[in-house]
């Protein structure tokens, strides 16, 4: 250990700094939360009493089961959306393939809570669809009643996780696997059941457990749909109404973390054995055939229905943002740009704050991500792997829990020179919390980029006289640029629409980012228009950034010959 410090003092110093940062802003706050959940509020000793209280309260028991139910049902509904789409693209030469790919991305641009109110306007009891149904068929379907609404909104948003993972798994199946089964006399549904499904299963399970995790942790959607008898809203309401000393918020946080870790573990286990499904030499993907006209007809109908559902939140949000009054009618009464004017003139701080916070968080993330990736992949420092594990563990911590942890840990910490300003309610805390929460995305992007850089490219620079630092600066960083940018954009885009954590940490409206603004506006009927306009702004910013970085990274990779034209 001592000799290592002597050999690479620079590397060691960077590693120590990063470790301290992660300890202070990730490990300590989360451990605090767990600690308080098991602490006797009066004596300070260890106790299970809080958990006993939790499970003996009818409201909490109901919330617990509701969260499980909503998570499970969302997985089922999302699977119902994703499976036919994945089947069409993997099995047939289908023109709609491009549309399906687009469907896989659109929902991810916007977190579910943004579109929740818009969905209410379309599918609610007095929404467009039910008004039409009542007029023509005399029926009213409770799409959005209570938990149904949460399930519908969540599955419309998160089904792409299943679609993407399942499609990838199906496309990775070597055609020779299918052909050798046919060669041995197996075909049709039997072939599907015995060969294709087992090979695609890991991809499906990974996608499904991700959906469950996202839904289980989501705070914004149930809050905006006014469904409070679920776990995340209960935790928020307890802390917000009773205060940061109420143990129930911490107990719920621990439960959220445990369930999140369990579903991540499930996804990890499912993907661990995926090696056997990867393409070997020869043709990739299953044999595709042309659809018969009747098949084509039904395929298009299914794709169009799902497309309409997926676009519903976006369409609804657009109409909300452009409509004057939209109540008890299929469409808004008239259209106007007033709501957009309103957000730019009355509350521009929501947008400027978002750009500031997200850009800072994204910047911190790619700097940390590049440094951690380099330490893990290119140095021999003891404990480097742990740095990666700790940074990645943020993925399993719901934003709400980080928010609670920050309040608990930093509420009594004063910012020096700011006259009694608590660190927990300072805007910088929001930036750091966003950076910590989005670090895993940036870290994976940076690691992937560094893995693509062959070590011999660095060794040849050293061989020609460049030292380690010079090599990093002249060879490693330029070659990682695409991945670093992708990591920045992912961090930036997802930080821009993070709600759970910001709700806990924003102490005054002037410090609030977009997501917070949308939440505040959507509380009142009059605020729905400006709230939706903010939502549209968010979608445009996130969508544009993602698109531009995608085009840039793709071009660059082609120019460097790291990716060939297919």
């Amino acid at each position, binding site marked *: 250990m001592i000799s290592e410090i002597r050999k690479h003092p620079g590397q060691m110093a960077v590693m120590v700094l990063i470790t301290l940062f992660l300890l202070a802003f990730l490990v300590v706050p989360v451990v605090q939360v767990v600690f308080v959940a098991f602490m006797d509020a009066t004596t300070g000793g260890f106790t299970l009493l809080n958990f006993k209280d939790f499970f003996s309260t009818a409201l909490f028991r109901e919330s617990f089961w509701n969260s499980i139910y909503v998570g499970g049902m969302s997985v089922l509904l999302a699977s119902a959306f994703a499976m036919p789409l994945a089947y069409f693209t993997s099995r047939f030469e289908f023109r709609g393939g491009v549309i399906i790919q687009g469907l896989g991305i659109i929902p991810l641009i916007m977190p579910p809570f943004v579109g929740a109110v818009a969905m209410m306007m379309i599918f609610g009891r007095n929404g467009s669809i039910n008004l039409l149904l009542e007029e023509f068929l005399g029926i009213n379907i409770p799409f959005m009643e209570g938990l149904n609404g949460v399930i519908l909104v969540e599955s419309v948003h998160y089904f792409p996780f299943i679609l993407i993972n399942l499609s990838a798994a199906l496309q990775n199946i070597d055609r020779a696997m299918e052909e050798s089964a046919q060669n041995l006399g197996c075909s049709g549904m039997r072939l599907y059941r015995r060969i294709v499904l087992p090979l695609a299963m890991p991809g499906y399970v990974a996608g499904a457990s991700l959906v469950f995790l996202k839904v289980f942790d989501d705070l914004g959607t149930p809050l905006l749909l006014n469904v409070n008898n679920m776990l995340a809203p209960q935790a928020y309401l307890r802390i917000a109404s009773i205060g940061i000393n109420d143990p129930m918020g911490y107990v719920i946080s621990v439960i959220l973390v445990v369930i999140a870790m369990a579903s991540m573990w499930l996804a990890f286990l499912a993907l661990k054995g995926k090696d056997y499904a990867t393409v070997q030499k020869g043709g990739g993907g299953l044999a595709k055939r042309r659809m018969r006209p009747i098949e084509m007809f039904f395929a298009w109908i299914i794709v169009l229905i799902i497309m309409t559902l997926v676009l519903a939140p976006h369409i609804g949000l657009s109409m909300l943002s452009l409509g004057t009054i939209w109540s008890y009618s299929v469409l808004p009464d008239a259209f106007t740009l007033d709501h957009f004017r309103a957000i730019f003139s009355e509350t521009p701080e929501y947008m400027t704050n978002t750009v500031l916070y997200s850009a800072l968080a994204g910047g911190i993330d790619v700097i940390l991500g590049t440094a951690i990736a380099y330490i893990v992949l290119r140095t021999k420092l003891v404990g480097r792997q742990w740095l990666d594990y700790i940074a990645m563990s943020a993925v399993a911590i719901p934003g709400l829990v980080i928010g609670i942890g920050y309040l608990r840990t930093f509420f009594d910490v004063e910012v020096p020179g700011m006259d009694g300003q608590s660190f927990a309610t300072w805007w910088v805390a929001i930036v750091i919390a966003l950076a910590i929460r989005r670090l895993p995305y940036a870290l994976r992007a940076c690691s992937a980029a560094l893995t693509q850089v*062959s070590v*011999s*490219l660095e*060794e*040849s*620079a*050293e*061989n*020609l*006289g*460049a*030292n380690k630092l*010079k090599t990093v600066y*002249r*060879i490693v960083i*330029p*070659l990682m640029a695409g991945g670093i940018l992708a990591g920045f954009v992912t961090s930036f885009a997802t930080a821009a629409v993070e709600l759970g954590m910001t709700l806990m940490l924003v102490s005054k409206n002037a410090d609030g980012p977009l997501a917070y603004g949308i939440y505040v506006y959507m509380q009142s009927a009059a605020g729905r228009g400006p709230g939706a306009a903010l939502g549209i702004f968010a979608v445009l910013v996130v969508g544009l950034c993602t698109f531009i970085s995608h085009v840039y990274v793709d071009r660059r990779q082609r*120019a*460097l*010959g*790291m990716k060939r034209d297919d």
Partner: protein
Amino acid sequence: MNQNVNLAGHGSPVGVDIKGVNLSFGSTHVLKGIDLQIKPGEFFAFLGPSGCGKTTLLRLIAGFESCQSGEVLIGDRDVAHLPPWRRDVGMVFQSYALWPHMTVRRNVAFGLEERKFPRAEIGPRVEAALDLVGLLELAERRPSQLSGGQQQRVALARTIVVEPQVLLLDEPLSNLDAKLRIQMRRELRLLQRKLSLTTIFVTHDQEEANTTSDRIAVIEQGIIQQVGSPMELYDQPANLFVANFLGVANVVAGTVSQEGDGLSFRSDDGAVTVALSAAGQGPRSIVFRPQNLTIQPAGQPAPEGLTELAGKVSHMEFLGSVVRYQVTVGPHFLLVDSAHQKGVVPMEEGTDVNLFINNELVIDLPN
């Protein structure tokens, strides 16, 4: 070529001394007591099967590995504690390792920039190096726009432009197709002569080593088996591994004992006996090459003074210039090459034949 810039500008070439080097990765002992002296200006090859440690030894010289004991001297300088960027040895990587984000010109200029050459000097030197490998007109291209052979030349130009004291080549020809490989190895040899640059070449291909190198070290399991010129290694292998690794060899195990005035080798089963003029006694193996044998159908008159072995053709391969027969002699399968001329009908499988060995060509080695 730009006459104003002379790439072989550094002083007289230097040698490389490797003394008692031991290197382990964890519990795997990769290099075991390596001692080697590479002479100044020599073209030297490390030859061995994959995993024998030859690339590790090269990387040790370049400074990318460090050894637990022993020392590496370049010229008379102990480089063991120098990082790669202070060693002044040029290495051409197996994958070429050209930086994809830089043009050919920027790739070649890199080493000069790191050595803080004045800008005015870098340009002409880069052009001279590119001219030397015949790629001057491709200077503004990106590596991804070049063929494998061109990338190889750029890698070479990038290395020699800094005029390193020693040139290290790590399987530089393995990614080229067969025809290009033959052309490149000739060019490498010519270039090395021109620059009189001490060069170490790592390969698993004996033909590559034979055709380029002044001397070869055959390495197996982290141990140097033999050092010598290509012909010495082929004609006087030090052990059975070297005999088998370089070229095709017939190996028969048996015993050498005194018989009358001379020595005689007798295989364990008695099927092969050969009189030897000089050999170690006791359990030994004899080695002879397929071209050391002549083959005749049984019943034809025997040539004078050769040892005769009776056998049967069990397999025949046509290799173009020769026909290679596998002949069963007792329990042994011996390979015999017979020069092929147009119109000659080869012997069929199952033909009874006699083999003749010139005893002088038989090598005896310890088992």
